[in-house]
């Protein structure tokens, strides 16, 4: 399952760091962050529940870039 989330982040490299952090989160199969449109596209692993995975994604992103937000 794929879902797109609106995000808020100020620098391009931070967006790349967020992408990496999101990819490494458990329950996430793949993730792309588009800095220009401020969107994060998350492909969830089989059987993963987005509402349960997304808080973890958010926490991991906060670790690499405190000044970011994912609206989910």
């Amino acid at each position: 399952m794929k879902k797109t989330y609106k995000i808020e982040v100020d620098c391009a490299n931070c967006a790349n760091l967020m992408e990496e952090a999101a990819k490494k989160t458990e329950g996430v199969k793949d993730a792309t962050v588009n800095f220009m449109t401020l969107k994060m596209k998350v492909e969830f692993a089989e059987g993963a529940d987005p509402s349960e995975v997304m808080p973890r994604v958010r926490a991991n992103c906060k670790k690499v870039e405190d000044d970011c937000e994912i609206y989910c």
Partner: protein
Amino acid sequence: MTKKQKKNLGRIIVAAFLLIVLALVETKGATKAALYAVPYLVVGYDILLKAMKGIKNRRPMDESLLMVIATLGAFALAVYDEETGGEGDYREAVAVMLFYQIGEWFQSYAVGRSRQNIADLMDIRPDYANVEEDGRLVKIGPDEVEIGTLIVVQPGEKIPLDGVVEEGNSALNTAALTGESLPRDVKPGDEVLSGCISLSGLLKIRTTKEFDESTAAKILDIVENASSAKSQSEHFITRFARVYTPAVVFSALLLAIIPPLARLLALGAAPEWGTWGYRALTFLVISCPCALVISIPLSFFAGLGAASRAGILIKGSNYLEALAGVKTVVMDKTGTLTRGVFDVDAVHPEKIADTAMDILHLAAHVERYSTHPIASSLREAYPHEKDDCTVEDVTEIAGQGIKAKVNGQTVYVGNDKLMESIGAKWHPCTREGATIHVALGSEYIGHIIIADVIKPGAKGALLSLKQKGVNRLVMLTGDMKKVAAKVAAELGIDEYQSELLPADKVTALEKILAASKGEKYLSLENLILAVKGRHETVKAKTAFVGDGINDAPVLARADVGIAMGAMGSDAAIEAADVVLMDDNPGKIAVAIGIAQRCMTIVKQNIYFAVGVKFACLALGAIGLANMWLAIFADVGVMVLAILNAMRLLWQE
């Protein structure tokens, strides 16, 4: 400006002001350090907080942490310098933090602005639909409108859903969809697409699609998902940034330790810990990768924006990259180079007494009630078909043609067989196309040639493709060889394949794809890459252009599949990588041109940003660049890279 941007701008101004005041005030010792700490904290407190979080999360390469180490280090060196009797330059630490923040602010502002600019270009999302309820107009969300609802579009409003005009005339501005600035007139019975703006009259439209299926929604979907597919250049710069920061930080460490030790042990000279420490701190300032990383996606985004303004939808920055390297263009004939509809190409009267109009006149009357496509082109060619002539006894002769009584005289319109059967003395024509013979009674009076007509801009389009560096043009068609040869000759295409079934087109394209990779593909270097599963070194790309009818598999198979005039054809929009929103073949060269300009700017930005960074590192290592230069270079590179990318949008 967002709230956050305003706040940060305020902090920058206050800190800059304090810094200027402090430069004018004569202070010494601890007071001086404490005074300079004020602007430093004003402008950098959030970076300090982030740095602490970086330590907590065990991220030694955190950008904020590196900035804090660099500036606090500079601060400490200034204290040390003053203690040992020097001037004590506190300004540097504050200024570096200040400029770092200015850079961040500018990046946030410029990117926000360009994001807005580009979003405005693609702003075709309709906000509401007017529906009549109890005699009053009610505004409802376009996604609530069901198929078959009558909606009202007032002058100046956006058409919210695809549909057919029931009432009213208007001129439509289709610029947002097609990039075409000339308004299109619509009248009852015409199909209209969502996203167009009605300019002059009130229209009542019967919707034919739901919002999600409407043209505007589909285009928005493509545009919004476009830059998610990343290009090689973007992958390169991301990988580069990942290696760059740790490498520079590591060299900073080495720079702080090895040269002083070497001086001390090998040369027996003074170690100069302070000097080398300062150079190492300069390295930390340069290690910040943002200027490198920002310019590339921004350039691609601007490229996608410039393309969509011209009515060209590109599904991702990877296709923009591929489009720039297109050397072979394979084209479908019907609907791409030719109009795909049959038109009267020539009329040849048999006798001098008859004019072309006389023959068309009779033929149009005979075909008055026929639904055959050729009949409608005959009727269109004769403008006053609905005159007061009588047309009776219309009989269709299957496989041959039609006969009818026009003003009492029997007229036969049809092929060779029909002429044979009535004993008319017909003769074949040398012109390509379908020949329609006309006979009055049993007397042969002439024939009409009906052919698919080449689009007016086709020849110019192919010429500009060649100017854009395309060196091989191939035309594929399911049509007969004779017709293909004629079109190819007229357009100056040297290569064509005819009488192909849709499946044959895929095979033909595959052969061309293999050939365009050519001998180069067998080189050792490429072979190694091929073993690794990487094919990207093969630079020449092949594009296929089709109108999306029957050629979806070919579109999908090409390096770049370009669908033209595809508005409304779902399969084509799905299969293509690039969608031209109108059917003007000239847009192919426009698309390639935008892609090439975009790639030039991407390369300029990469070379420029990486070059300046390395120059600063080199100068910093030998002590020619101080921290001021390092931070100026970083912010300057970013500003210039962003402005360079925005050039794509300014150019017409």
